[in-house]
């Protein structure tokens, strides 16, 4: 059986994506565009907040859109209107890496362990990052992952202003690597003004 066609139990997840009004309009007209993700998070994909560490992921998506509006180099706002999009995501559990549960963490740790063993033979030491390892698992590790989920500490506007930097995860996020396949339906959940 071709791996890509293998069907198991489907995971159905609701995700919230906060972005500018212009980007949201483009997404609603066409589709989500994959971008290079933060190396510390879940690698290159489309990011969503989802239920888990927070009961109000749509508020977190709004807070993210507000925090992302500020351009610290230009010391001004990149945009003043934001949208929160609600997306229904479906993924076969065979292609879903859930790093909020032990079995997902076990898989990532096994890959990281094999990686470290091999790299140590070169005499070099690398700085590890979850996102970079996940990118490698997906593209070279022979595993087909369409969606990954993890708990992370994310800094919003208040945390950035007051430099609050905790280690306790405050968000559950998803990275969708194949949005065309997994993002089934998207609608506007909330509109707002960046203040």
């Amino acid at each position, binding site marked *: 059986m071709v791996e890509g066609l293998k069907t198991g139990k489907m995971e159905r997840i609701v995700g919230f994506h906060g972005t500018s009004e212009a980007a949201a309009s483009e997404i609603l007209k066409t589709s989500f565009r994959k971008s290079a993700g933060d190396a510390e998070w879940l690698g290159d994909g489309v990011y969503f907040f989802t239920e888990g560490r927070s009961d109000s992921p749509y508020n977190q998506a709004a807070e993210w859109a507000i925090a992302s509006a500020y351009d610290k180099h230009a010391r001004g706002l990149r945009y003043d209107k934001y949208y929160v999009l609600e997306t229904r995501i479906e993924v076969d559990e*065979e292609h*879903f890496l859930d790093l909020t549960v032990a079995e*997902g963490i076990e898989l990532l740790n*096994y890959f990281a362990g094999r990686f470290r063993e*091999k*790299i140590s033979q*070169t005499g070099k030491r690398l700085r590890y990052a979850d996102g970079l390892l996940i990118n490698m*698992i997906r593209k070279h590790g*022979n595993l087909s992952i369409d969606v990954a989920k993890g708990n992370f500490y994310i800094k919003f506007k208040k945390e950035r202003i007051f430099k609050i930097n905790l280690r306790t995860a405050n968000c559950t996020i998803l990275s969708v690597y194949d949005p065309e396949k997994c993002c089934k339906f998207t609608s506007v959940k909330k509109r707002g003004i960046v203040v």
Partner: protein
Amino acid sequence: MKLDKNTKAKIDRFFDQITPDELLKLAVEEYGFEIEAGLSASGDFHRVLRVVPVGSAPTLISSDGISPISFAC
């Protein structure tokens, strides 16, 4: 997705087919891994650094009292 026999075999196949140098090149050039800075010449970073009193000139002094690095301030 979990670490079952099948998944483990796929991961092992990748690592068994790639040499350490090829993996390092792939990790750094394609995925953006950073190589950590090396240790001091003595091999013991902590042996080289110690706290100096406030107001004294910044310098690196080894535990045997000999400064391996000196620079003008």
